[in-house]
Protein backbone atom coordinates (compact mmCIF):
# COMPACT_ATOMS: atom_id res chain seq x y z
CA UNK A 1 0.00 0.00 0.00
CA UNK A 2 1.35 3.42 -0.90
CA UNK A 3 0.30 6.82 0.31
CA UNK A 4 -1.85 8.49 -2.31
CA UNK A 5 -1.86 12.14 -3.36
CA UNK A 6 1.94 12.53 -3.41
CA UNK A 7 4.05 14.40 -5.97
CA UNK A 8 6.80 12.61 -7.91
CA UNK A 9 10.14 12.32 -6.13
CA UNK A 10 11.84 14.74 -8.54
CA UNK A 11 9.96 17.68 -6.97
CA UNK A 12 11.42 17.09 -3.52
CA UNK A 13 14.77 18.82 -4.05
CA UNK A 14 13.15 21.78 -5.82
CA UNK A 15 10.72 22.06 -2.89
CA UNK A 16 13.52 22.20 -0.35
CA UNK A 17 15.40 24.87 -2.33
CA UNK A 18 12.27 27.05 -2.65
CA UNK A 19 11.22 26.59 0.98
CA UNK A 20 14.64 27.30 2.48
CA UNK A 21 15.26 30.32 0.20
CA UNK A 22 11.85 31.82 1.00
CA UNK A 23 12.23 31.15 4.72
CA UNK A 24 15.69 32.72 4.91
CA UNK A 25 14.79 35.76 2.78
CA UNK A 26 11.49 36.20 4.63
CA UNK A 27 13.15 36.16 8.05
CA UNK A 28 15.96 38.49 6.89
CA UNK A 29 13.44 41.03 5.60
CA UNK A 30 11.09 40.58 8.55
CA UNK A 31 13.89 41.47 10.97
CA UNK A 32 15.19 44.19 8.59
CA UNK A 33 18.62 42.73 7.86
CA UNK A 34 17.99 43.19 4.13
CA UNK A 35 15.60 45.24 2.04
CA UNK A 36 14.91 44.05 -1.51
CA UNK A 37 12.92 46.08 -4.08
CA UNK A 38 9.17 45.49 -4.20
CA UNK A 39 9.11 42.32 -6.31
CA UNK A 40 5.31 42.03 -6.40
CA UNK A 41 4.53 45.71 -6.99
CA UNK A 42 2.94 44.74 -10.34
CA UNK A 43 0.40 42.43 -8.74
CA UNK A 44 -2.81 44.01 -7.42
CA UNK A 45 -4.82 42.40 -4.64
CA UNK A 46 -8.42 41.57 -5.65
CA UNK A 47 -9.50 42.08 -2.04
CA UNK A 48 -8.06 44.88 0.11
CA UNK A 49 -6.07 46.56 -2.67
CA UNK A 50 -6.41 49.94 -0.95
CA UNK A 51 -4.91 48.53 2.25
CA UNK A 52 -1.63 47.33 0.73
CA UNK A 53 1.20 48.18 3.11
CA UNK A 54 3.77 50.03 0.98
CA UNK A 55 3.76 52.97 -1.43
CA UNK A 56 5.86 53.04 -4.62
CA UNK A 57 5.58 55.97 -7.07
CA UNK A 58 2.37 57.09 -5.35
CA UNK A 59 0.76 53.65 -5.70
CA UNK A 60 -0.08 51.23 -2.88
CA UNK A 61 1.81 47.97 -3.46
CA UNK A 62 2.40 44.62 -1.81
CA UNK A 63 5.27 43.97 0.57
CA UNK A 64 7.67 41.15 -0.32
CA UNK A 65 6.34 38.96 2.50
CA UNK A 66 3.48 37.92 0.19
CA UNK A 67 6.01 36.54 -2.28
CA UNK A 68 8.04 34.76 0.40
CA UNK A 69 4.88 33.25 1.90
CA UNK A 70 3.68 31.92 -1.45
CA UNK A 71 7.10 30.51 -2.40
CA UNK A 72 7.53 28.98 1.07
CA UNK A 73 4.13 27.28 0.98
CA UNK A 74 4.67 25.89 -2.53
CA UNK A 75 8.22 24.77 -1.68
CA UNK A 76 7.35 23.26 1.69
CA UNK A 77 4.36 21.37 0.26
CA UNK A 78 6.57 19.96 -2.52
CA UNK A 79 9.30 19.03 -0.02
CA UNK A 80 6.83 17.45 2.39
CA UNK A 81 4.52 15.75 -0.09
CA UNK A 82 6.87 14.38 -2.74
CA UNK A 83 7.52 10.65 -2.80
CA UNK A 84 10.72 9.38 -1.25
CA UNK A 85 13.04 7.51 -3.61
CA UNK A 86 11.69 4.21 -2.23
CA UNK A 87 8.27 5.27 -1.02
CA UNK A 88 6.60 2.26 0.58
CA UNK A 89 4.13 1.40 3.32
CA UNK A 90 6.61 1.89 6.19
CA UNK A 91 7.58 5.34 4.95
CA UNK A 92 3.88 6.05 4.44
CA UNK A 93 3.33 5.19 8.09
CA UNK A 94 6.17 7.50 9.20
CA UNK A 95 4.62 10.21 7.03
CA UNK A 96 1.18 9.85 8.61
CA UNK A 97 2.58 9.62 12.15
CA UNK A 98 4.63 12.75 11.53
CA UNK A 99 1.51 14.54 10.36
CA UNK A 100 -0.28 13.61 13.59
CA UNK A 101 2.78 14.55 15.66
CA UNK A 102 2.96 17.93 13.91
CA UNK A 103 -0.73 18.57 14.63
CA UNK A 104 -0.29 17.82 18.34
CA UNK A 105 2.91 19.89 18.57
CA UNK A 106 1.26 22.79 16.75
CA UNK A 107 -1.79 22.75 19.02
CA UNK A 108 0.45 22.56 22.09
CA UNK A 109 2.53 25.52 20.96
CA UNK A 110 -0.61 27.48 20.08
CA UNK A 111 -2.09 26.80 23.53
CA UNK A 112 1.12 28.00 25.15
CA UNK A 113 1.11 31.12 22.97
CA UNK A 114 -2.48 31.97 23.96
CA UNK A 115 -1.56 31.62 27.63
CA UNK A 116 1.80 33.37 27.52
CA UNK A 117 1.59 36.07 24.82
CA UNK A 118 -0.81 39.02 24.49
CA UNK A 119 -1.07 42.32 22.62
CA UNK A 120 1.09 43.18 19.61
CA UNK A 121 3.62 40.36 20.23
CA UNK A 122 0.75 37.97 19.51
CA UNK A 123 0.78 39.29 15.96
CA UNK A 124 4.27 37.80 15.61
CA UNK A 125 2.93 34.52 17.01
CA UNK A 126 0.21 34.55 14.32
CA UNK A 127 2.81 35.14 11.63
CA UNK A 128 4.80 32.07 12.71
CA UNK A 129 1.60 30.09 13.33
CA UNK A 130 0.69 30.35 9.63
CA UNK A 131 3.73 28.31 8.65
CA UNK A 132 4.38 26.22 11.76
CA UNK A 133 2.32 23.11 10.82
CA UNK A 134 4.23 22.59 7.57
CA UNK A 135 7.57 23.28 9.24
CA UNK A 136 6.89 20.97 12.17
CA UNK A 137 5.79 18.18 9.84
CA UNK A 138 8.80 18.62 7.56
CA UNK A 139 11.30 18.59 10.41
CA UNK A 140 9.75 15.63 12.26
CA UNK A 141 9.37 13.54 9.08
CA UNK A 142 12.98 14.17 8.02
CA UNK A 143 14.37 13.44 11.50
CA UNK A 144 12.55 10.08 11.75
CA UNK A 145 13.36 9.20 8.13
CA UNK A 146 17.06 9.89 8.60
CA UNK A 147 17.01 8.04 11.93
CA UNK A 148 15.58 4.91 10.29
CA UNK A 149 18.03 5.16 7.36
CA UNK A 150 20.91 5.44 9.83
CA UNK A 151 19.60 2.47 11.83
CA UNK A 152 19.38 0.41 8.63
CA UNK A 153 22.93 1.42 7.63
CA UNK A 154 24.29 0.27 11.00
CA UNK A 155 22.30 -2.97 11.00
CA UNK A 156 24.72 -4.95 8.82
Amino acid at each position, binding site marked *: *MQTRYLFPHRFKRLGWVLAVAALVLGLLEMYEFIRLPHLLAWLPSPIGNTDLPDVVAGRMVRDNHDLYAVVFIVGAVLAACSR*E*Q*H*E*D*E*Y*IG*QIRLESLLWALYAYCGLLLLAFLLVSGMPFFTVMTYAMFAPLLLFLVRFQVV*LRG*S*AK*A*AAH*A*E
Partner: protein
Amino acid sequence: MQNKLRIERAILRLTQEELAGRIGVSRQTINAMEANKYVPSTALALKLARVFGKPVEQLFELEEGD
Protein backbone atom coordinates in the same frame (compact mmCIF):
# COMPACT_ATOMS: atom_id res chain seq x y z
CA MET B 1 4.21 -9.47 16.81
CA GLN B 2 7.47 -11.40 16.48
CA ASN B 3 9.06 -12.53 13.27
CA LYS B 4 11.89 -14.71 11.98
CA LEU B 5 12.83 -12.51 9.04
CA ARG B 6 16.44 -12.01 10.09
CA ILE B 7 16.98 -15.77 10.47
CA GLU B 8 15.28 -16.59 7.18
CA ARG B 9 17.28 -13.89 5.43
CA ALA B 10 20.49 -15.32 6.86
CA ILE B 11 19.55 -18.81 5.62
CA LEU B 12 19.13 -17.45 2.08
CA ARG B 13 22.29 -15.30 2.53
CA LEU B 14 20.50 -12.16 1.44
CA THR B 15 21.44 -8.67 2.55
CA GLN B 16 18.70 -6.30 3.68
CA GLU B 17 19.24 -4.37 0.46
CA GLU B 18 18.79 -7.50 -1.69
CA LEU B 19 15.65 -8.57 0.17
CA ALA B 20 14.27 -5.03 -0.11
CA GLY B 21 14.89 -5.11 -3.86
CA ARG B 22 13.14 -8.45 -4.26
CA ILE B 23 9.92 -7.30 -2.62
CA GLY B 24 10.04 -3.70 -3.78
CA VAL B 25 10.42 -1.82 -0.49
CA SER B 26 13.09 0.37 1.09
CA ARG B 27 15.92 -1.04 3.16
CA GLN B 28 14.56 0.90 6.14
CA THR B 29 11.38 -1.15 5.95
CA ILE B 30 13.28 -4.46 6.13
CA ASN B 31 15.32 -3.17 9.06
CA ALA B 32 12.24 -1.87 10.89
CA MET B 33 10.46 -5.21 10.45
CA GLU B 34 13.47 -7.19 11.66
CA ALA B 35 13.74 -4.92 14.69
CA ASN B 36 10.02 -5.51 15.40
CA LYS B 37 9.36 -1.79 14.98
CA TYR B 38 7.00 -2.28 12.07
CA VAL B 39 4.31 -4.86 11.34
CA PRO B 40 3.91 -5.23 7.57
CA SER B 41 0.65 -5.27 5.65
CA THR B 42 -0.82 -8.58 4.52
CA ALA B 43 0.43 -7.94 0.97
CA LEU B 44 4.01 -7.39 2.16
CA ALA B 45 3.87 -10.40 4.50
CA LEU B 46 2.74 -12.57 1.57
CA LYS B 47 5.57 -11.25 -0.60
CA LEU B 48 8.07 -12.12 2.14
CA ALA B 49 6.52 -15.59 2.46
CA ARG B 50 6.97 -16.09 -1.28
CA VAL B 51 10.64 -15.08 -1.18
CA PHE B 52 11.38 -17.40 1.75
CA GLY B 53 9.18 -20.19 0.41
CA LYS B 54 7.33 -20.59 3.71
CA PRO B 55 3.80 -19.89 4.90
CA VAL B 56 3.22 -16.55 6.63
CA GLU B 57 2.52 -18.29 9.95
CA GLN B 58 6.09 -19.60 10.01
CA LEU B 59 7.52 -16.12 9.55
CA PHE B 60 5.26 -14.15 11.89
CA GLU B 61 3.99 -15.07 15.31
CA LEU B 62 1.43 -13.31 17.48
CA GLU B 63 2.53 -12.27 20.94
CA GLU B 64 0.40 -11.91 24.04
CA GLY B 65 -1.47 -8.65 23.80
CA ASP B 66 -1.63 -8.68 19.97
